[in-house]
C-alpha cells in the first residue's frame, strides 16, 4: 500500500496553488497600502464606527441564527432518528433537494411572501390581523439565514444521532434514568460532535453572508460581508477589503477554536 502515497501529491500541489497561496495573498494585500508599503491601517480600519458596527451586527445575527437553527434542528434530527428512516439517502435528499432551486431565487421568494402587498400580508388581511412588512429588519435577515442554513444543522445532527449505539440509551433507561435524564446525560453529550460540525456549518456562512442582507435587508442592514464585498466590487480597494477579511478570518478561527474544544475526538461529522 505504501507505493500509493505519491497519489496524494497532485492534490497537495492544487491546494498550495489555490488554497494556501490565495490566503497568503490576502495577508499580503491586507498588510500593504495602495503604494505597496507595509501598513496596519487596513486592519485597524475595523475600529471605524461603520465597520465595527457592521461586524458586531454580523456577529449578533449569526450567533442568533446558529442558536435558532440548533433549537429547530435538534428535534427534527431526534424525530427522524426515532422514525427509523435509516441512514439512507431519502432524508438527506429532502434537505438537499431545495438546493436545486437556485439559492438566490429561493431567498428572493421570501420577498414575495413577506413584503408589503405580499402573500402573508394578504393572508393576514383576509383573516383580520394587521401585518407590517418585516423586510429590512433584523428579523427578515435571521429568517433568511435560518432558511438557507438549517439543512446544514439537521444533517450532521441526524448523522450522529443515527450512528449512536441504541444499547447505551436503553441501558440508561434500564438503570432508572427518565427520558429527560437520558437525554441530558447520554444523548446530548454523545451528539456533541454533530452539534460542533452543525454549528460550524451554520455560523461561518451566516457570519460572512452579504447576499441575504442584500436581498432581504432592503439595503438598510449592512453586515461585514456587505462592506468587504463593496470594497472589492465598488470601491475597488482590495487592500482595505483584504484587511477586513483578515479580521473576519480571525473571528472565524477564534470561534472554531472555541467550538472545537467541545469536540473531544476532534473528528466532527460532516456530511
Amino acid at each position, binding site marked *: 500500500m505504501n507505493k500509493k502515497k505519491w*497519489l496524494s501529491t497532485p*492534490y497537495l500541489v492544487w491546494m498550495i496553488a*489555490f488554497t494556501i497561496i490565495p*490566503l497568503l495573498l490576502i495577508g499580503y494585500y491586507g498588510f500593504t497600502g495602495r503604494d505597496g508599503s507595509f501598513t496596519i491601517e487596513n486592519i485597524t480600519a475595523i475600529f471605524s464606527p461603520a465597520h465595527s458596527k457592521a461586524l458586531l451586527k454580523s456577529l449578533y445575527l449569526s450567533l442568533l441564527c446558529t442558536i435558532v437553527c440548533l433549537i429547530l434542528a435538534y428535534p427534527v434530527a431526534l424525530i427522524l432518528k426515532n422514525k427509523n428512516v435509516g441512514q439512507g439517502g431519502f432524508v438527506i435528499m429532502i434537505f438537499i433537494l431545495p438546493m436545486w432551486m437556485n439559492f438566490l431565487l429561493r431567498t428572493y*421568494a421570501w420577498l414575495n411572501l413577506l413584503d408589503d402587498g405580499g402573500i402573508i400580508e394578504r393572508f393576514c388581511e383576509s383573516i383580520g390581523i394587521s401585518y407590517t412588512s418585516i423586510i429590512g429588519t433584523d428579523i427578515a435577515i435571521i429568517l433568511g439565514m435560518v432558511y438557507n442554513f*438549517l439543512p446544514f444543522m439537521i444533517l450532521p445532527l441526524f448523522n450522529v444521532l443515527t450512528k449512536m449505539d441504541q444499547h447505551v440509551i436503553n441501558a440508561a433507561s434500564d438503570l432508572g434514568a427518565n427520558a429527560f435524564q437520558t437525554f441530558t446525560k447520554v444523548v446530548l453529550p454523545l451528539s456533541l460532535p454533530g452539534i460542533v460540525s452543525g454549528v460550524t456549518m451554520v455560523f461561518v456562512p451566516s457570519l460572512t453572508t452579504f447576499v441575504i442582507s*442584500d436581498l432581504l435587508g432592503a439595503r438598510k442592514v449592512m453586515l461585514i*460581508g456587505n462592506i468587504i464585498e463593496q470594497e472589492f466590487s465598488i470601491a475597488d480597494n482590495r487592500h482595505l477589503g483584504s484587511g477586513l477579511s483578515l479580521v473576519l478570518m480571525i473571528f472565524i478561527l477564534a470561534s472554531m477554536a472555541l467550538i472545537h474544544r467541545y469536540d473531544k475526538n476532534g473528528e466532527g461529522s460532516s456530511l
Partner: protein
Amino acid sequence: MKLKRFFSQIYLTLIFIFLYAPIAVLIVFSFNSEKGSRFNHFSLRWYQELFQSEMILDALWNTLFIAVTSAFFATIIGLISCLGISALKGKPKAVYMSLNNIPMLNSELVTGLSLMLVFAAFGLTAGYPTILIAHITFNIPYVILSIMPRLLQTNKSTYEAAIDLGASPMYAFYKILLPELMPGIFSGFLLAFTMSLDDFIITYFTRGAGINTLSTLIYSEVRKGIKPTINALSTIMFVSVLLLLFFVNRPKKDSTKQ
C-alpha cells in the same frame, strides 16, 4: 405516547412547510400571467418566453457546463487523493485532512476573494477557466469526505488477494476497489454537482465580464425585479430532478428487498 407522535408529526410538517414554502411560491408564480406578487390567472407565457430568451438559456448552459465539468474533475482528483491519503499515516494524514477542511471553514466569501486575487496575480484573465478552477477547488473537499469513509470500510485483503493472484495494481483497482467505492464516488459527484450548481458567491468573484451563470444572472436582475421566466426555468429543473430521483430510487428499493 400517541400524543408525542402526533406532535412530532406536526413539528416535522411545519419544518417541511418552512423549507418548501418559497419553492411552492416560485412554482405557482411561474404559471402567473403577469409579473408581480399578485396571481392573475394561469398562463404558460413565461415558459414560452423562456425558450426565446437567449440570455437565460446561455446562463443555463454555462451553469450546467461548469457544474458537470467541475464535478467531474473534482471527483477524479478527489478519488486519486483519497487513495493517496489513505496510504499516509499519523501526522501527514492529519495535516492533509485539516488542509482539506480549509475551504469548508474559510467561508465562501474569503475563498472567492482570495481566488480572485490569485488569478489576478498569476495573470489569468477571468473567464471559464477561472470559474472552473474555483469550483473544482471548493468541490474537492466534499468529494473526499464522501469517498474517504467508504474507502476506510473496504476490506483490504480482497485487494491484496487479487494482487497475490497475479492481478496488476491497475486491474485490481478497477475490478475490486472501484466497484466498492462506486456509491461514495457517485454521492461525491452528486454533492459536488449540486454545490457547483447552487453556488453564487465564488462564481461572482471569479467570473469574467460577460459570463453569467444562473446565479449571477439572477443577482443582476434582482434590482430590476426578477422576471417569472427564471421561475419557469427553475420549476423545470426542480421537477426534472424530482422525477430523476424517483426513478433512480425505485429499482434500488426492489434490490434491497430480495
